[in-house]
């Protein structure tokens, strides 16, 4: 079985993002890393390979040439080869465009299983996996906390409101990874040295016959309003009094 897994380059979620004077993101001093939800996908794909259920793990990223770094991270974790769909830095990419580009790779590679993060921690759209399902016509299991591959099916344990639900999806299938799916390994130094020699192909949207024409564009960023400083109340009575008369949240 061939597994395709995504690796998006995102701003390190631990850094505090600032805005410049004109309402754009100030990315001058931020670090980038592999989207944590994609990390779960990569770990799951590598585990399937170690368990003998996958023969090849291909990692794909859509982004600028800088995204090669995140592909190499996935290769260091154990993926076999990488594909970068390279786009210009100033190109707007909406979830549908990204799903079309990944679909282009799916048509070329014909994987049996496609693993994606449930969302990327930068824009938090949570759309690409589902859109890819529509474009490919494959079944999908989103928000996976558990994944088994058996007799041509993916059995996906899903996180849903108020509990979990299992679905059985015929392969080829799309699975998006949620938090509890696994504990991603570190890129070890031997893994990093091996990754250096693994193949990484660069494709353009033209190679995939996809026109990049985003229908959704970011028009501006705004920081949430500063919260006023809190007050320390003396006792529960004062708290109730303030909730009732100042905040007016209790009767």
């Amino acid at each position, binding site marked *: 079985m061939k597994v395709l897994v995504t690796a998006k380059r995102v701003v*390190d979620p*631990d*850094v*505090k993002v600032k805005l410049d004077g004109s309402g754009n993101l100030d990315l001058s*001093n*931020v*670090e980038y*890393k592999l989207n944590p939800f994609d990390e779960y996908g990569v770990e799951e794909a590598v585990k399937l390979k170690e368990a003998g259920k996958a023969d090849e793990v291909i990692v794909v990223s859509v982004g600028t040439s800088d995204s090669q*770094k995140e592909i*190499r*991270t996935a290769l*260091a974790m154990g993926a076999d080869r990488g594909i970068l769909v390279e786009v210009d830095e100033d190109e707007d990419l909406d979830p549908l465009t990204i799903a079309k580009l990944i679909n282009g790779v799916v048509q070329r590679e014909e994987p049996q299983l496609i693993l994606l993060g449930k969302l990327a921690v930068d824009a938090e759209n949570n759309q690409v996996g589902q859109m890819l399902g529509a474009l490919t016509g494959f079944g999908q299991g989103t928000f996976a906390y558990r994944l088994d591959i058996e007799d041509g099916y993916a059995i996906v344990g899903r996180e849903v409101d108020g509990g979990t639900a299992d679905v059985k999806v015929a392969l080829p299938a799309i699975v998006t990874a949620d938090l509890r799916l696994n504990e991603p*390994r*570190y*890129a*070890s*130094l*031997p*893994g*990093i*040295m091996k*990754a*250096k020699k693994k193949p990484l192909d660069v494709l353009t949207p033209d190679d995939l016959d996809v026109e990049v024409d985003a229908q959704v564009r970011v028009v501006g960023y705004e920081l949430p309003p500063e919260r006023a400083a809190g007050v320390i109340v003396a006792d529960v009575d004062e708290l109730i009094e303030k909730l009732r008369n100042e905040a007016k949240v209790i009767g």
Partner: protein
Amino acid sequence: MAMNFWSKGPLYNPSEEHAALRESVARWALANLDEQADEHDAVEEFNIGLFRRMAQELGIFGVTVPEEAGGLGMDATAAVIIHEELSRFDPAYTLSYLAHEVLFVNNFFNSSNADQRERYLKKVTDGTWLAGMAMSEPGAGTDVLGMRTTVRPDGDGWRLNGTKQWITNSTLGDVFLVYAKNEDPDGRSLSSFIVESSWEGFSVGRKEAKMGMRQSPTAQLIFDNVYIPRENLLGVEGGALVGMMRNLEIERLTLAAQSVGIAMQATEVMSDYAINERRAFGKPLSAFGQIQRFIGEAYAKTEAARALTYQAAKSTSADTRNSLGAAAAKLVATTTAEEVARNAIQTLGGYGYTREYKMERLLRDAILLSIGGGTNEAMQKNITGDIVRMIRR
């Protein structure tokens, strides 16, 4: 909170692999080292379980050993990156790693033959065996050539007799690289041997109680007529001095890197505290000039020590020697670590003196770095000695 005010660029991460290594080690250290450091400092026990797990999860053993020999084929800069990132959270754990990886593995590899690599390299790079190096003695530290441990030919091998002092990893180690004098009239010819702790006549003295570096076990090694077979001679008989001096360079660089890690951590802790946490007289501490001097000097001196250490690492390898650079880096970085850790405690006031903010542990640990691997006075002596040789008319 990740603080992004440290210099970046090719001096610090010369290749993509260096950058990936730094990222992995930093993440691993934050997730695994921080939480166990205080506890292992308090009980004065090395976290050998974590060390073995690190071998699996990060695989940072045999870093400087060429790939064709089964190592990772990286350089002194990679070793510096690892020691800097680990030492931020636990310098004592890192010291034991250093004794294993730099004092034994790197040293052993550079002087070993194919048979010895076959017998030992895998065991010390997959986490099975813990290793160390024994040079210092009760009566000979800086004056290392005054050592009195000797080897005497016996049959096809040698008999080893003597005592080594303050040996890191001694209480738990499986194998040691031991320097000893040949019983010859000029008294200067040194040999090095691979000695296993299971051999007859090998024993370990009482574990030392120390000011800092408490997680890292330190004790005497006592050799009572230990038989060393011929195949465990490292390099040529009487020719160990070159290997010893060569390995001291990367040892000093990685000790400098440990100091840099401490200084970076201290700078971050004091900055965060003074800017975001503590207020006095209605202002954050960072509004006061005296605190600005602590922060400003901590940042500038740490950056300087860091730049010097990475600069020296660029020209340090088994073939390209750089004793002057390594000595300079160690002198500057260790002094900086002590000063910055001390001023971090001062900035934190009472909280700095208590264990809550970990700065007192980092200061206790930092002081060893001005002593081990050659004292700061020895660095001053060596730098001057090198310069004398270069410019004396």
